[in-house]
């Protein structure tokens, strides 16, 4: 005969009806019976041991609510009692029971209301589980959460500072020119992405160099590669080697920086006195020139492939930024849409740049281009814009 086939009393001899009292008294949980008004009429041994009370002290003179601290008492009266009255049961209440010595016994309490019968009047049955270990565990979880939150806050602050530093240091104006930049990263949680803009003087102190570039990918890895490429470009260009040599040196530089390979760059240097421009584009969308009359022209020369592994001679070209003229450098996120070919996108930018209100300042132009061109954005990408204006006369 298997255990499953034997009658239960044979499996555990001695577990007769007379032991039911013991099952109650020494159950692994506290077990109370109270009148509907809370007066305790019975308590098992386990509960008495836990709270350190004699049955005489507990049964009769004490109501369940009296076992709770002041806060628990209010909670009981305003939440537990109404719930019991209306739905007949409450479960898993997290309450402190005050022991005889005044210390708190953390407990999980469930109560069920029994309706009166012919044999016994209405009463409540209350089970009490020791929750002290669970409480310690929960306290540890709360501490861990607080630590994690503090650490996350710190990481965020570090990231913000780092990101800002990666895009910092560009000049915004000098004798005879002004520069405006706009930046909108793909991710709201980051301040920057893989796009950059920069403006700086060459060492002759009269030539202004501007660069806008785009590192493949988004997020923090692209941002770090961007920071290095941007700094390298500035270091190389400042000596005055010219646009073609700048891009060639960057080809060498990214050999040891895989994340920056295939980056695209538009680079131009402007003589602020004469308006003479030297520029080169490595796989990047062409800079846009807008003259004083509002005629827009893309600079389609000086083009070569994106920055990358195979070194080769790169071309550069020249143009003129006339007085009161503007040049706009930008990344693809500003104009490219999935549903539109690139020629239409470029036309749209040229139209927007050329059709501003009369006397529109450079900051207003920057705001308007961002607003107009991003209005139909169909996927979120990094967006970067740099506009330089040569003053009249």
């Amino acid at each position, binding site marked *: 005969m298997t255990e499953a086939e034997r009658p239960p009393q044979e499996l555990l001899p001695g577990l007769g009806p007379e032991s039911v009292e013991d099952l109650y008294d020494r159950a692994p949980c506290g077990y109370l019976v109270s009148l509907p008004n809370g007066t305790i009429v019975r308590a098992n041994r386990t509960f008495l041991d836990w709270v350190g009370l004699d049955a005489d002290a507990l049964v009769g003179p004490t109501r369940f609510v009296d076992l709770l601290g*002041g806060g628990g008492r*209010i909670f009981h009266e*305003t*939440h537990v009692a*109404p719930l019991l009255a209306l739905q007949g049961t409450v479960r898993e209440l*997290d*309450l402190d029971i005050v022991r005889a010595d005044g210390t708190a016994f953390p407990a999980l309490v469930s109560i069920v209301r029994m309706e009166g019968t012919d044999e016994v009047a209405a009463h409540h049955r209350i089970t009490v589980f020791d929750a002290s270990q669970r409480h310690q565990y929960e306290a540890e979880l709360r501490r861990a959460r607080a630590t994690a939150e503090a650490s996350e806050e710190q990481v965020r602050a570090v990231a913000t500072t780092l990101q800002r530093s990666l895009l910092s240091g560009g000049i915004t104006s000098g004798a005879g020119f002004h520069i405006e930049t706009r930046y909108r990263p793909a991710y709201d949680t980051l301040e920057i992405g893989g796009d950059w803009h920069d403006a700086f003087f060459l060492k002759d102190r009269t030539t202004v160099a501007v660069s806008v570039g785009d590192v493949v990918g988004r997020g923090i890895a692209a941002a770090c590669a961007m920071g290095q490429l941007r700094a390298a470009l500035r270091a190389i260009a400042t000596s005055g080697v010219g646009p073609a040599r700048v891009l060639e040196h960057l080809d060498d530089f990214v050999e040891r920086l895989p994340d920056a390979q295939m980056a695209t760059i538009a680079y131009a240097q402007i003589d602020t006195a004469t308006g003479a421009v030297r520029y080169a584009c490595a796989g990047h969308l062409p800079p846009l020139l807008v003259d004083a009359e509002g005629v827009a022209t893309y600079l389609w020369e000086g083009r070569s492939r994106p920055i990358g592994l195979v070194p080769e001679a790169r071309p550069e070209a020249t143009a003129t930024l006339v007085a009161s003229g503007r040049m706009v450098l930008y990344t693809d996120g500003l104009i490219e849409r999935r549903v539109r070919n690139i020629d239409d996108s470029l036309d749209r930018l040229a139209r927007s740049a050329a059709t501003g209100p009369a006397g529109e300042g450079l900051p207003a132009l920057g705001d308007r281009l961002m607003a107009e061109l991003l209005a139909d954005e169909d996927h979120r990408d990094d967006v970067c814009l740099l506009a330089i204006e040569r003053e009249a006369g």
Partner: protein
Amino acid sequence: MGVAERNNVITRGRSGAQPMVFAHGFGCDQSMWRLVAPAFEATHLTVTYDHVGFGDSDLSAYDPVRYGSLQGYADDLIEVCESLDAGPVVFVGHSVAAMIGVRAAIARPELFDRLVLVGPSPRYIDEDGYVGGFSAADIDGLLESLDRNYLGWSSAMAPVIMGNPDRPELGEELTNSFCRTDPRIASQFARVTFLSDSRADLAKLRVPALVLQCSDDAIAPLAVGRYTHEHLAGSELVVLEATGHCPNLSAPEATTAAIASYLAP
């Protein structure tokens, strides 16, 4: 959003009769009046409502500034009474709603015929010889209890649709809304309630009032009920033989009888 939607105002009973407005206290919602309000449907237009933030009120209307003191709740009560447009009402307020009613009736006495204050307390915390029954530490303990039981409430109470075979009149929907409150709102209402001090208001009330006191109330002890009665000119005090703070649930018949007797011509 009108007052009716904002405060989930529900009217029953005799239309055209004098309105009887029931307000719940801290903890749950207008279900607290389920066993009492129906007894007055034959003689009155009964009106029950939820304070904003509780029951089926419009949670989006909860403004922490407006409801940062009992005055915000009193203003809501005034708007409920005005929206009825049916003359002075009998107001029945349980627990903290008693003092909400006192404030409203001081500001707009013409809207109120009589007040029934069930388990009122003008001040819960002991102070300078006044015995309210609680210390500031107890209120911290209450906030901790609310915090500790928030998750339990939402998981244990929310999805379970329980019938009440013993009390079928209560219906099934109670377990879904009853006592469930946004923990932020519950915590603020707990502070507003238990840190309030309405003792100075008592002398200003000009509307007659009944103080309905339980003989054994852990929240508003007998001495507090006496204090309220003594400081409300023209009030009556009735002590119910009942344990606990919610005679509207634990002793609905006695509560109903005491109110009916007070209102009897």
